[in-house]
């Protein structure tokens, strides 16, 4: 999975199977937002092979750890999106319910 060197763990390429732009582009977003990352990008070597290579270069921290933190950040963001979305849907449905009660009066 991880292709890097033992001498310099701060730069690695991660080869992720069964994934595509969906995950790689989201990871690129969160990793680029991380101040420890000096470079992050991804490529899909061949369109008919389900594989994506994510390159992570950091200012010193091990790239694997930074990628793990990035995944955790992405999970937190997703949870926040889900919660905000559910609240908004509930709010909308409640306002609809009170509206229709007003109409029936």
């Amino acid at each position, binding site marked *: 999975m991880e292709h890097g060197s033992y001498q310099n763990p701060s730069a690695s390429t991660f080869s992720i199977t069964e994934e595509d732009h969906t995950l790689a582009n989201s990871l690129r977003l969160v990793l680029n937002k991380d101040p420890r990352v000096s470079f992050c990008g991804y490529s899909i070597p061949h369109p008919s092979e389900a594989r994506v290579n994510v390159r992570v270069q950091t200012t010193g921290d091990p790239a694997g750890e930074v990628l793990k933190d990035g995944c955790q950040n*992405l999970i*937190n963001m997703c949870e926040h999106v*889900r919660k905000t979305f559910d609240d908004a849907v509930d709010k909308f449905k409640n306002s609809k319910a009170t509206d229709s009660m007003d109409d029936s009066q």
Partner: protein
Amino acid sequence: MPKLPDHLELKRTRVSCKLDAPNDTESILYSGAYASMDVDNSSLESFFKDFKVVVNRITEDEIEFDMIGIDAALANAFRRILISEVPTMAIEKVFIEKNTSVVQDEVLAHRLGLVPLRVDPRLFSYKSEKDEPNEKNTIVFGLHARCEQKEPRRSVKSEELSWLPKGSMFLLEIENKASSSTTAPKTYTNFKSSQDELPELSDNPIHPKYPDITLARIGPGQEIELEAHAVKGVGKEHAKWSPVATAWYRMLPEVVLLQDIINEEAEKLVQKCPANVFDIEDTPTGKKATAPRPRSCTLCRECIRGEGWDKYVALRRKKDHFIFTVESTGALSPEVLFTEAVKILEDKCERIITELS
């Protein structure tokens, strides 16, 4: 904290639609992009503070909402997952006992596969090639349609697909006849219990979402008898498993009047716009143009066409404001589909974390 100068802030947050092409379309991700100006671009904390969702419309199978304060990478990830990775149930195998209609077996089977089924896929598990079909991974439908000799030609509709909660009724051909007398006859499925005993399914029987989909036409004396087995799958394998008709987003358009547009020019502007974005306001100094409905703007750029008009009007899009629409095919409600999509992205991250540790 120091702020970016206006022209850079505009490039960072807006796509500007010029006559020839849209400019500044990329989102600036790198945290140190503005380090030389002492501005921090690592906005994860502000995401948790500022992210907002506003629902505009919910119907039985459609939702439209605004997602504000999120990057296109994530919005697009949700859209891609909705189309190709949220599972549903769809007919995968068709056992044809009799088909004397003019529709060929394989064409009929393909049409059956595309029929949307109203069933919650979370109640079922995936069936791999080796698995025996059982009550956890397969839904069986029976169809027996016949057109009598004297009757006129008629359509076979999707409502004639009847759910068989006890599994397949077709008997397997058994080589050893002696053993079949003691045990129950074997069929193409191996159900240990009836599916309608499940509390979720007992008062909510499985049926095609729409009753009026034409499956075939049969003439006098023709007959179709078959069994269709539905399994769980995802849209990237075949579009019949895609839970959405479409899921799409657009960035919020922004129409800015750069200077006062008055009298004849104002009327010309209102005339120019096919989407009815502009209005005319009466002021003491004369008629003045306003842009009260930027949301209806389709960015056709008709208003900035012609000599000098781009000095009056600027067309932009907000890079972090998405108008997201999800149209469900009926297996799950659209708001549930979206939360499922977000959960799938979380699962992907978790997989990476476990593989790295």
